[in-house]
């Protein structure tokens, strides 16, 4: 008999726990869908986008709509999953879309020699603003469009550099 009453108590507590958990789950999935498909924030750091982005780190807003709608243009700063290290996401600028001819310096620190490349279909050519310290398409080639994660459009931190990118 005691067991039955314990089970009854546990049942109502479990029901309430499930109700609270489902509210939390709905909230989290709403946040997640906004984060993954509309707008999110990222900390971007490193020397490859100097002087546009600071070396020690900037918090930028990323929008995930343009690349799905095919509205990217040369000059956009993108977040792209690295083709050589799938765990890493890099921030670079689009220099050429598919079909464009891109000319770049092969060794900017040492020589003036340049190379011209045709960007293949379904790919983009990305380069860091700081060509002297950037591993980008000059190193790993044109990047398939499917690796693009989003476009950085607004810097929110540091406050002194707040503004559109």
């Amino acid at each position: 008999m005691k067991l039955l009453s314990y089970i009854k108590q546990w049942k109502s507590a479990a029901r309430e726990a499930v109700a609270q958990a489902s509210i939390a789950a709905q909230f989290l999935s709403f946040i997640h869908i906004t984060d993954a498909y509309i707008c999110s924030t990222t900390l971007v750091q490193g020397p490859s986008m100097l002087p546009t982005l600071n070396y020690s780190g900037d918090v930028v807003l990323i929008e995930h709509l343009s690349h799905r709608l095919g509205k990217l243009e040369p000059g956009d700063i993108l977040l792209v999953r690295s083709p050589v290290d799938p765990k890493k996401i890099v921030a670079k600028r689009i220099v050429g879309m598919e079909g464009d001819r891109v000319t770049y310096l092969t060794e900017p620190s040492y020589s003036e020699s340049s190379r011209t490349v045709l960007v293949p279909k379904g790919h983009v050519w990305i380069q860091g603003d700081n060509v002297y310290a950037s591993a980008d398409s000059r190193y790993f080639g044109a990047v398939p469009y499917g690796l693009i994660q989003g476009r950085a459009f607004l810097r929110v931190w540091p406050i002194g550099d707040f503004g559109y990118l």
Partner: protein
Amino acid sequence: MWSIIREAFDKTLLVAKAYGILHITNSYLCTVALAYGPSMIPTINLTGDLILAERISPRLRKVGVGDIVIVRSPVVPSRVVTKRVVGMEGDRVTYLLDPHNSDEVRSTVVPRGHVWIQGDNIYNSKDSRDFGPVPYALVEAKLLWRVWPPKDFGPMQHIAR
């Protein structure tokens, strides 16, 4: 009148929640894929098979040689293709350049962070032999279990027949 609006709002919210759960399951856990076309004959039928595909293995880097994977096409980004992984990064892959006409083979090493995918039907398949090795991050799902047609119900073969 307000009760009608409230009821409409509640029903819409319910549909949105159900859709949200379905979407998250489809994108992060498990989805049903319709795979069709000649490039994976005889493993996958020409007219189309419904196959359960899971999205957890690619994230955990548990995709290996012999797995059939769904990959976002590097040539047409709005399309996904179904092929078999023939080589992981660092593997040496040997393939026939033109299987219809000659026995000429070429051999490459799969670069870091990439996979080499080929269709089981090498005579009619656009795969890494055409567009080169594919970055690992483009691998979206791994095919697990065929659910339609019923006579082919069962797990997907790990190695090409």
